[in-house]
């Protein structure tokens, strides 16, 4: 396309944005609200995901060995667990260390057990893939000299289920919102097209190509999308920075950590802008296609 032609298309698209200021305002607001909701949703989902990852990574299997087992047997057990499929690492903790931990968390009354420690040695096992935790636990449970195998089964599985479900619901909601915004843009462009029907008719009559007719409208849709993306990008960026500043010190040492602002916010802004442009362009394509049939 010639630069002159592109310039003309850009001027035309601005012209109709100005001319239909009311519809422009309506659809830009719609895109703004949509992208704001979508953006907030993504922020929550991404942080949720982040939390899920940390919890997933934190899930380990505790294998309590038979208290009657001697050192040689324990050594064999550690080796066997270590060579089990899907096991990332095994940390050995002696029965005395285990008792110390219990005394620490439950109090000195337990010190009297130091005379005859009833606990067995413990192995802390991490799976390469946290989702495999249950399967590995089951397998280890069949080995000899294992007294107990625990990993907070139900809790972990429920958490995974909730996370997966909310991810899916989130995606569906996002899609629905995007479609709504697209529909609104498409309506705005339709009004522009109807207002310029004679113009289009004449353009086609004298042999303008379909692209020539179409591009100003597609550009108009794109501007609407971009304008609609500005406020959400600013609002979400600023809020997230503030939130991060506020919460970060308080979350020191907690399992739950906010995602770092960089590169997350840049990526999110890019995504919001991209979504704005996409719904603008698609919205206009849809209405143009219907109206400009040759």
């Amino acid at each position, binding site marked *: 396309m*010639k630069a*002159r*032609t592109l310039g*003309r298309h850009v001027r035309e698209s601005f012209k109709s944005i100005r001319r239909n200021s009311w519809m422009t305002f309506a659809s830009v607001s719609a895109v703004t609200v949509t992208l704001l909701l979508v953006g907030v949703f993504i922020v929550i989902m991404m942080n949720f995901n982040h939390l899920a990852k940390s919890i997933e990574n934190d899930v380990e299997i505790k294998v309590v060995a038979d208290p009657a087992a001697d050192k040689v047997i324990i050594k064999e057990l550690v080796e066997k667990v270590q060579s089990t499929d899907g096991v990332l690492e095994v940390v050995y903790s002696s029965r005395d260390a285990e008792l110390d931990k219990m005394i620490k968390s439950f109090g000195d009354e337990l010190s009297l057990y130091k005379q005859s420690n009833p606990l067995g040695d413990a192995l802390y096992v991490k799976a390469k893939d946290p989702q495999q935790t249950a399967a590995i636990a089951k397998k280890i449970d069949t080995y000899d000299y294992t007294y107990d195998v625990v990993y907070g089964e139900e809790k972990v599985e429920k958490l995974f289920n909730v996370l997966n479900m909310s991810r899916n619901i989130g995606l569906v909601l996002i899609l629905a919102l995007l479609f709504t915004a697209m529909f609104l843009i498409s309506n705005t462009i339709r009004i522009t097209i109807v207002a310029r029907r*004679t*113009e289009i*008719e*004449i*353009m*086609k*009559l*004298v*042999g*303008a*190509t*379909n692209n*020539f*007719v179409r591009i100003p409208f597609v550009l108009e849709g794109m501007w609407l999308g971009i304008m609609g993306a500005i406020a959400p990008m600013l609002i979400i960026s600023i809020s997230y920075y503030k939130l991060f500043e506020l919460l970060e010190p308080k979350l020191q040492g907690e399992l739950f950590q906010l995602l770092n602002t960089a590169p997350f916010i840049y990526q999110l802004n890019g995504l919001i802008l991209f979504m704005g442009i996409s719904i603008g362009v698609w919205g206009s394509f849809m209405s143009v296609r219907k109206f400009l049939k*040759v």
Partner: protein
Amino acid sequence: MIVMKNVYKKYPNGVVAANGINIEIDRGEFVYVVGPSGAGKSTFIKMMYREERPTSGEIIINGINLATLRNKRVPQLRRQIGVVFQDFKLLPKLNVYENVAFALEVIEAPPAEIRKKVNDVLALVGLTQKARMFPNELSGGEEQRVSIARSIVNVPKVVIADEPTGNLDPETSWDIMKIFEQINARGTTIVMATHNREIVNAIKHRVIAIEGGLITRDEYGGEYYEG
């Protein structure tokens, strides 16, 4: 130049507006298409510039076969055809010059060429003095002259007009006819659907009469009459 073979057109509502039309129009001819309202004149004309597609049959314009012409190629066809309507179809927000230039701008002609061609054609239709006026400041005859100027500014081989004098008083109609005569004299083929008995009978050209979607008469230097 223009050939139609067994052209049949049935609208989606079932109306048959062309019922087997065969016609051949040579380069440089001036043809009146006459017939009562609803006869199928406009359909005949619309099929030539691919506004409507025939249900069956063959239409060839300037060697372009409209039956096999891909939608993408329609602009190429239209650049070789000028179209004039009863209701002018001018853009109210553009002045006379801009309305004519518009036809060249949208086919991406170079600016220098646009200036030259628009000025030439405005001189031809006698509107050089009114180039900066807007359509609502013009008389009907002047508006039609603008629309004719627009249709010929790209030097088409054929000009198709659907009742171009239908909205004009008799005197103005004669002025418009003079312009069409001039265009025809330059070698441009003209196909004009009309209801105007006085004009058809006074300025003699080939007359094609259509009724019920059929050509009922085709005479060189014919008269206007119905039935």
